[in-house]
């Protein structure tokens, strides 16, 4: 009779096997007193390691934990409320600005097509300006001298062999 590995037996004892594996071990245990004995020993060791008394926490410790927790939780609530207020204020600001722009456009009486063209032109000018700035920047590679093997400059300080 082939016994399951010790680790498999332990996994079976701790309910860590899948149904198929568990079924196989269960089938083996029906005929094997040795493995059944090992399992019962494991159970006895675990029972002896199990705590039998109920843990009681002193009132002093409990009140200390709760009073500190209260402070932290209160701070959390305040932070959330503040964040909500901020997002509300931002939302209101956008609404106000939207209304302001709409009013201004209505007063200017500029046709929508011309307004759209103007926006595209402004966007183009801003982007083009940014691109030019990037092109103007000196690339880093110009400032770095790269020596390849055999081309070492002996005039460089610290290489006075």
């Amino acid at each position, binding site marked *: 009779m082939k016994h399951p590995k*010790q*680790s498999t037996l332990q996994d079976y004892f701790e309910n860590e096997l899948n149904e198929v594996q568990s079924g196989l071990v269960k089938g083996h245990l029906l005929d094997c007193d040795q493995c059944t004995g090992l399992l019962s020993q494991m159970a006895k060791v675990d029972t002896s*390691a199990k*705590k*039998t*008394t109920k843990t009681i926490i002193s009132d002093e410790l409990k009140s200390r934990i709760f009073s500190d927790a209260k402070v*932290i939780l209160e701070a*959390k609530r305040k932070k959330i409320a503040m964040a909500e207020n901020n997002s509300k204020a931002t939302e209101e600001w956008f609404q106000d600005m939207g209304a302001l722009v709409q009013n201004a456009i209505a007063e200017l009486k500029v046709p929508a097509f011309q307004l759209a063209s103007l926006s595209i032109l402004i966007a183009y000018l801003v982007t083009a300006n940014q691109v030019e700035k990037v092109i103007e920047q000196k690339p880093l590679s110009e400032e770095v001298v790269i020596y390849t093997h055999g081309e070492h400059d002996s005039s460089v300080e610290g290489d006075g062999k």
Partner: protein
Amino acid sequence: MISDSHIAERLRLGDEEAFSHLYEKYSATLLDHLFHMVGKREVAEELLHEVFITVLGKINFYKEDLLLKNSFKAWIFRIATNRAIDEIRKYKNIKFEEPNLDLVDEVDMEMNIENLWRDHRIHELLAMLPVVQRTFLNLKVNNDLSHMEIARVCSCQINTVKQGLFQARKSLKNMLLAEGVEL
């Protein structure tokens, strides 16, 4: 019973009632776990206080792990274990203190005192095991965590947990046999 994920969600919003649930659910098991690790009631109580404060401070970083059945429990126990390990590094040998009879449940006093001394003796035997092994055993036996959950709590591989549990049981069995306990 409120689920762990609901407790975590409410704690993020600063709900005090959720904290009460958290305390009721985990304070005793956490204190036992810490006591198992550090061996001194006073130190374990101090650590328990710190663990709850840390849990509240870091609750926004908690992410539920769908692979684990007890994801939140494993997360809290990981915080507790890390804190206890920091504390253990201060001592070389752990001497478990004698049981405090003032803290015995008054119902069936005689039986409880007997159990308290029995628990104390087991604590002393467990203290002879390497800290990792007794932590594995305690998390398995008293907290019913799976191998994967214990691995998360102790930041190690599942095979290390299996091996550690096997060794812990073997050593404890030998110690119990040496004490004359029939197995």
